[in-house]
């Protein structure tokens, strides 16, 4: 579409009974509580405004939006005046014109009149409003006291703040408070000296608490806060709605373009997942798409010790196909496999698993959910009957008690965290279960009622103790349970959790959670109204990840917190399309829609559609593939959009597995760490260069739209199709909508999904089928998908990973706001200004015992390996616990993590590794050797 700013109704939408009034002679009906300004905007009117915008509550400071109301005294501000039945409003009269023009004149008398060279020229509300009120002259001249000539704050890498263009409307300050919930900005000084400030004296935007979400920039009505990219490139000329490719929140954005060049990403106000908000990654960190490191030409090599050789697509594809076919002929179909990408679209993930099952002839397909939320799929499937969360994000608006376990949303899922914080500011209570003092434990205007700082690895024990209190104190919702769950199974479970050995007091020595705190938290959750559970990888990435998910489901059922708004079990999925990749049949034991491969009837559907016979036996999971590779029975892998060498545990073992294979095909944007062991490199396309769909953590399927041509020439699904054709499959998809049509034909929960419908209606939440034609925002409303909810007895089994004299500390890992997973994208953006290296958080007591200070190099050693990084001494972690991120390959945190894994799914136990920390004088020998080896592996032969 041609570029137009997003509509702005001035004040937020309200809900309530209808009220009818008259504005400028036209009748308008709006919900009670709506402002006169918004009511006017709803019928196409445009009352002049400067301090009002519909992302924040009305403020009433600029006096531009005055109106006349019959019978009312004076001239009320339309932004702060709610509608009333029978109200008669005039928005344009000579008196109003004169006042508005006078106010505007004052604003403009202290504004640099550099419109022609201003980045916001023709995209500026101040300019528009001046035109709207007919300002033609400034009688006061421009020589009086003013704010002109101030040095702009350009400290933030993505936007600048020009004080002389600021009209002190406070929209930025209010956006920071109300939308983002960070409270980083304020108005400093009084009267004429009032100015926007990002913190204490001496602070600039970069050094302040600002998290660079961009809400202030979006709210600014002038060029005071402007994206640097707009200054550099110019005003956009068109906008395309698409879906972010970072986390599982699934924010929708307007990709605003000039030609084939992206100018900026602006959160889309109508986005159902993000409701117009964004974070520093989705809003600003897209520069990787054109980074110099990006590989756009296919490459091959005979051996991984050879340099890469750039070749044509034809040569690369036929080289790969020949190797795959040779291996299949020699070792059989089960020697081949593939990994689908949670970064790619549903259509692309579906095709990769189809290639493996229908083309390679094995079920050796897996996806990165193996290392994140595979226990969610397992646990929720067993208890509820579906492998997904139960709510939409809007549901949090009705929550009274939020139980947050093993998740750090302000860093991992920041846009949803802002909505959660908003609800907490409105009075909802928060229980945090986390070994680390995450920001939500205490941040501006948010404080957890309880922080249960448990010992890593004891989630099941804590949840069982919570259940013990609920059952033994008679707080269970037995009416709900009797109606919705299997009563006998509940009785068995209730007996189990009621046992004295599961009391908070009995488990305190294990969990290190004071029994009194735990009892109080349990009572609050069971009796505090709508209770919602949100969780993340701190739940799943454990030896008992699946048990923990089931224990969460048990707790939700026992307290009747399922099947309506405000409650539910909500896994905060990590990657943009990890839900979708799982839905698409990326696991080795199941086809799309979570149907087991051994089910003959399901298999027959696919066999009929694909025209091939399918193996009825489950395939290998990623860690098993690597074992089998070392063993010699697994010899070829096609990896789309995943860097298993950096992201998977026990790096030495991953490297050994990859090195043992005869054919490793990496299909990615960059020569990632895994590509060091590859024989074929197929360049990938970014989310900006393809059309398809992503499914977010609330099961919402949303369109991803191509906004520019792929730099490599092909969308990723087209590359997979080339490979399929080369091994003899007769695929002939003309566009990705045809793939979605096939998915819909084969997958009951997607039966009603098509690109045409998504284009027309926006996102849809699966299941979308005959029973739920409009989709399913909330699941299990009238009953569980599996019939009766199933209580699963989940005994606490301590992990094999134990501390001892050699490894006395427990390492847990996570991620931070500015970087994303292995950092392949964010490390190639200006986000490195906030996090240029991984550091090890260590408690002051542990640091002192080792003679360590912040900034010191430390050696981090476990039974699996060792690495070196710098220390950060902080009491955010408990004594005995250390924490780091895994965003940088130079750190290789996963050299240290072990191959312990979840009992049911083999999801790695990233969150518990026994380690020792000691002083070091720099990177380890291994790190130096690795860097040298990586550089050697990335050599590209000079073209002849």
């Amino acid at each position: 579409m041609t570029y137009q700013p997003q509509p702005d109704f001035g004040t937020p939408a309200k809900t309530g009974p209808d009220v009818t009034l008259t504005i400028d002679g036209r009748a308008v009906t709006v919900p009670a509580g709506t402002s006169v300004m918004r009511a006017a905007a709803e019928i196409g009117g445009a009352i002049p405004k400067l301090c009002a915008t519909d992302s924040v509550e009305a403020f009433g400071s600029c006096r531009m939006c005055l109106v006349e109301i019959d019978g009312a005294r004076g001239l009320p501000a339309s932004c702060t005046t709610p509608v009333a039945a029978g109200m008669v409003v005039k928005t344009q009269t000579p008196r109003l014109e004169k006042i508005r023009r006078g106010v505007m004149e004052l604003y403009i008398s202290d504004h640099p009149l550099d419109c022609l060279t201003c980045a916001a020229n023709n995209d500026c509300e101040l300019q528009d409003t001046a035109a709207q009120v007919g300002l033609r002259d400034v009688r006061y001249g421009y020589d009086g006291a003013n704010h002109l000539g101030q040095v702009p704050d350009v400290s933030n890498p993505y936007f600048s703040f020009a004080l002389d263009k600021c009209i002190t409307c406070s929209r930025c300050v209010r956006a920071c408070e109300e939308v983002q919930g960070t409270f980083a900005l304020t108005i400093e000084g009084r009267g004429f000296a009032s100015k926007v400030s990002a913190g204490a004296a001496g602070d600039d935007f970069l050094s302040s608490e600002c998290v660079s979400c961009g809400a202030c920039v979006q709210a600014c009505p002038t060029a005071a806060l402007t994206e640097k990219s707009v200054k550099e490139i110019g005003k956009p000329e068109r906008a395309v709605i698409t879906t972010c490719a970072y986390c599982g929140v699934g924010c929708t954005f307007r990709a605003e373009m000039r030609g084939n060049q992206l100018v900026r990403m602006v959160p889309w106000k109508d986005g159902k997942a993000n409701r117009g908000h964004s974070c520093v990654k989705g809003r600003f960190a897209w520069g990787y798409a054109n980074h110099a490191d990006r590989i756009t030409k296919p490459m091959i090599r005979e051996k991984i010790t050879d340099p890469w050789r750039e070749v044509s697509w034809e040569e690369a594809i036929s080289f790969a196909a020949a190797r795959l076919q040779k291996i299949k002929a020699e070792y059989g179909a089960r020697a081949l496999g593939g990994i689908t990408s949670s970064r790619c679209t549903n259509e692309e993930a579906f095709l990769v698993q189809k290639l493996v099952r229908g083309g390679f002839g094995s079920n050796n397909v897996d996806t990165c959910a193996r290392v994140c939320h595979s226990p969610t799929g397992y646990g929720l499937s067993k208890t509820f009957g579906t492998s997904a969360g139960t709510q939409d994000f809007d549901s949090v608006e009705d929550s009274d008690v939020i139980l947050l376990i093993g998740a750090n949303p302000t860093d991992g899922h920041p846009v949803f965290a802002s909505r959660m914080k908003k609800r907490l500011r409105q009075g909802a209570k928060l229980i945090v279960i986390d070994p680390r003092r995450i920001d939500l434990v205490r941040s501006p205007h948010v404080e957890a009622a309880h922080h249960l700082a448990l010992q890593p690895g004891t989630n099941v024990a804590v949840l069982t103790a919570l259940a013990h209190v609920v059952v033994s104190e008679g707080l269970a919702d037995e009416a709900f349970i009797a109606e919705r769950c299997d009563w006998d199974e509940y009785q068995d479970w209730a007996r189990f959790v009621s046992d004295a050995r599961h009391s908070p007091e009995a488990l305190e020595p294990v969990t290190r959670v004071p029994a009194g705190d735990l009892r109080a938290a349990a009572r609050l959750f069971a009796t505090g109204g709508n209770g919602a559970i949100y969780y993340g990888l701190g739940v799943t990435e454990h030896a008992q990840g699946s048990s923990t998910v089931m224990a969460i489901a048990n707790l939700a059922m026992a307290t009747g917190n399922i099947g309506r708004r405000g409650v539910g079990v909500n896994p905060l999925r990590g990657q943009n399309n990890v839900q979708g990749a799982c839905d698409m049949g990326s696991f080795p034991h199941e086809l799309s829609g979570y149907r087991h491969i051994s089910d003959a009837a399901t298999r027959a559907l696919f066999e009929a559609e694909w025209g091939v016979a399918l193996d009825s036996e489950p395939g290998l999971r990623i860690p098993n593939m690597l074992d089998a590779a070392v063993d010699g029975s697994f010899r070829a892998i096609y990896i789309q959009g995943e860097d298993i060498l950096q992201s998977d545990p026990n790096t030495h073992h991953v490297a050994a597995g990859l090195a043992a294979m005869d054919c490793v095909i990496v299909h990615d944007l960059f020569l990632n760490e895994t590509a060091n062991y590859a024989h074929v490199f197929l360049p990938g396309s970014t989310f900006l260069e393809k059309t398809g769909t992503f499914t977010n953590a609330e099961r919402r399927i949303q369109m991803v739209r191509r906004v520019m041509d792929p730099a490599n020439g092909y969308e990723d699904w087209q590359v997979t199709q080339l490979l399929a054709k080369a091994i003899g499959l007769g695929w002939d998809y003309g566009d990705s909508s045809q793939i979605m049509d096939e998915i819909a034909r084969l997958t009951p929960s997607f039966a009603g999904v098509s690109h045409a419908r998504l284009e027309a209606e926006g996102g849809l939440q699966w299941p979308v089928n005959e029973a739920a034609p409009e989709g399913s925002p909330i699941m299990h409303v009238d009953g569980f998908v599996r019939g009766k909810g199933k209580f699963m007895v989940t005994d606490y089994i301590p992990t094999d990973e134990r501390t001892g004299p050699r490894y006395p500390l427990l390492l847990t890992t996570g991620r931070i706001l500015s970087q994303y997973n292995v950092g392949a994208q964010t490390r190639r953006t200006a986000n490195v200004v906030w996090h240029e290296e991984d550091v090890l958080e260590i408690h002051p007591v542990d640091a002192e015992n080792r003679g360590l200070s912040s900034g010191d190099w430390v050696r981090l050693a476990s039974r699996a390996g060792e690495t070196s990084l710098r220390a950060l001494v902080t009491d955010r972690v408990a004594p005995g616990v250390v924490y780091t991120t895994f965003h940088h390959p130079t750190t290789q945190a996963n050299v240290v993590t072990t191959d312990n894994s979840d009992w049911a799914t083999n999801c790695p136990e990233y969150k518990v590794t026994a380690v020792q920390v000691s002083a070091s004088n720099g990177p380890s020998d291994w790190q130096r050797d690795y860097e040298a080896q990586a550089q050697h592996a990335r050599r590209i032969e000079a073209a002849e």
Partner: protein
Amino acid sequence: MNHDNLIRMANQIAANLAAQGEAAAVEQTAQHIRLYWDPRMKAALREIDMQDLSPIAKEAAAQVLDRKTS
């Protein structure tokens, strides 16, 4: 396949299902292996030292191998 890994996996599954009661745990452990293990992993159960398996895992492995043979 790495026998140590397979033994560890089987024992871990059995330990986590043990609370269901022995008979159910054996049945569910066997079913878990059938549903989630690749054929070469199941086949390798023949080659491992059964003494390294917990009683539940051992019985479950026997059930898997019996069904596989029959």
